[in-house]
């Protein structure tokens, strides 16, 4: 079998060359410098990190953290409620409802965002609904505002929270809830004494599973956010494709990687505690 196992070196070489090497180059680039005429000047220095830790970048980073946090929080609360409901319906109905709720997230992200934008735009029904309810709105900001970004995040990443949480709900002994309700516990008591103690770690997991991808998201804020709400992902794209300041962009992406690694190690620790 020796002859055939040698083939597997192909994958190792492939991964080293196309996965590891580009990442190493990115790290190296973050220590290089922008050349005078726009190119890359490969001399070791820390200028980029000095520039990366500026107040504007920090504000953008902080705002992405805020939005990702909000989106993750809303997603996990919504999925907690949904799972609770699902556990009380007939078991063959559960998968159907779950599939119904997750199906739109599998449609291409651009289509989903396009549909949303089309719906809230000037020709769509949303302004008319607002008119009907006589809620004042700013017609300029209809298709581009931070709340829309938040909705986009939630719609896209909701299944990330819902499915793992549902799995934990299924593993839980739901007879406990029934017993508690037989003993006249109300919903709040059931939640506090039975569901929450058993499900707080899975909840944290689903929170992080939404939080991490939202942190570096580019498409959703780009399409739904307009010029004012810049996410960290947009900043990176801006540095790489528009202002062509690659070394600075590289150091910013290293910062993003560090942020993601920190959140992931939280997630790993959390999983081990479970």
């Amino acid at each position: 079998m020796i002859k055939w196992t040698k083939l597997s070196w192909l994958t190792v070489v492939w991964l080293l060359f196309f996965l590891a090497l580009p990442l190493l180059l990115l790290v190296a680039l973050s220590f290089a410098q922008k050349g005078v005429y726009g190119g890359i000047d490969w001399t070791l220095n820390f200028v980029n990190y000095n520039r990366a830790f500026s107040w504007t970048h920090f504000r953008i980073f902080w705002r992405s953290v805020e939005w990702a946090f909000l989106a993750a929080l809303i997603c996990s609360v919504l999925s907690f409620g949904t799972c609770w409901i699902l556990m009380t319906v007939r078991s063959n109905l559960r998968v159907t409802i779950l599939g119904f709720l997750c199906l739109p997230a599998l449609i291409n992200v651009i289509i989903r965002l396009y549909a949303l934008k089309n719906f809230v735009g000037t020709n769509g029904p949303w302004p008319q609904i607002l008119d009907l309810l006589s809620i004042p709105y700013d017609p300029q900001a209809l298709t581009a505002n931070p709340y829309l970004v938040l909705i986009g995040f939630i719609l896209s990443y909701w299944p990330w929270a819902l499915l793992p949480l549902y799995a934990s709900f299924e593993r839980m002994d739901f007879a406990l809830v029934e017993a508690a309700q037989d003993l006249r516990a109300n919903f709040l008591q059931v939640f506090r004494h039975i569901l929450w103690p058993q499900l707080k770690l899975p909840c944290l997991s689903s929170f992080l599973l939404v939080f991490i991808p939202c942190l570096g998201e580019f498409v959703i804020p780009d399409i739904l956010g307009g010029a004012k709400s810049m996410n960290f992902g947009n900043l990176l794209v801006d540095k790489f494709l528009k202002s062509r300041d690659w070394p600075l962009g590289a150091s910013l992406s290293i910062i993003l990687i560090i942020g993601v690694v920190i959140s992931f190690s939280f997630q790993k620790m959390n999983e081990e505690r479970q």
Partner: protein
Amino acid sequence: MSQATRSSAPPSLWTIIVMMSLILYVPLIWLAWGSFHELQSDGKWVFTLRWYGELWGDQLVWQSLSNSFYVAFISSCISTFLGAIVGLSMTQESIWQKKFIQVSTSISLALPEIVFSISLLLFFFILNIPLSLNTVILAHALFSFAFVAMTVTARCCLFDQAQVEAARDLGANDTQIILKIILPFLSPALFTGWVLSFLISFDDFLLAFFLNGIGSDTWPVKLYSAMRAGLSPKLNALTSCMMLISMVILLSFFYLRFRKGKEAT
């Protein structure tokens, strides 16, 4: 009787499901409806198939769709081939490689896709490789390889080494063992991996956005740039078609898996 003793959940939680389904589906339904209608100057919506006709005649859309198919097909074949190799080495004893594949898989899954695309862009730039469909293919193959490796690894846990030993006792050589035992054993995982990587590649926006060359747009990139230029009813028709296609593919995929699962039990 067992149904009657089922406990209840706070009824107000039903509003979550109803609300979420509305937010999820109403824009999509509106989109599909709008693709069949035209807004007259007096504010009335009139039924028309005009947008579909315009879409049919649009050469650039067809070009981008065929680009997408081409990229998805080639890249999923590459990643499945590599996945097969991984499977071969995993059914043998090679712990070191197993570890390596695991680490690299989790890296490419955990890494934000944007960093992934930026690093590949940089890589191609430094090696002086011009961006084209080939670079997109490479990136997609690399990205979807993680998913193929995952399905293959899961399958390899079930492999029974005794089969190989038995075959060898019966005088089979290496090639026969691979063709008659290992590959048939891996084929369900490889097939799932192939379908997954095809879907991932066909659906991907970000990697193609960064790495495609001039004039080699895949359809999500095409849609994105058309959207930047402004919303138009023709785009409604395009997105409705794509939505329908992906719905049909997904539903049939799940239906088949569901039925298979039922037969197994």
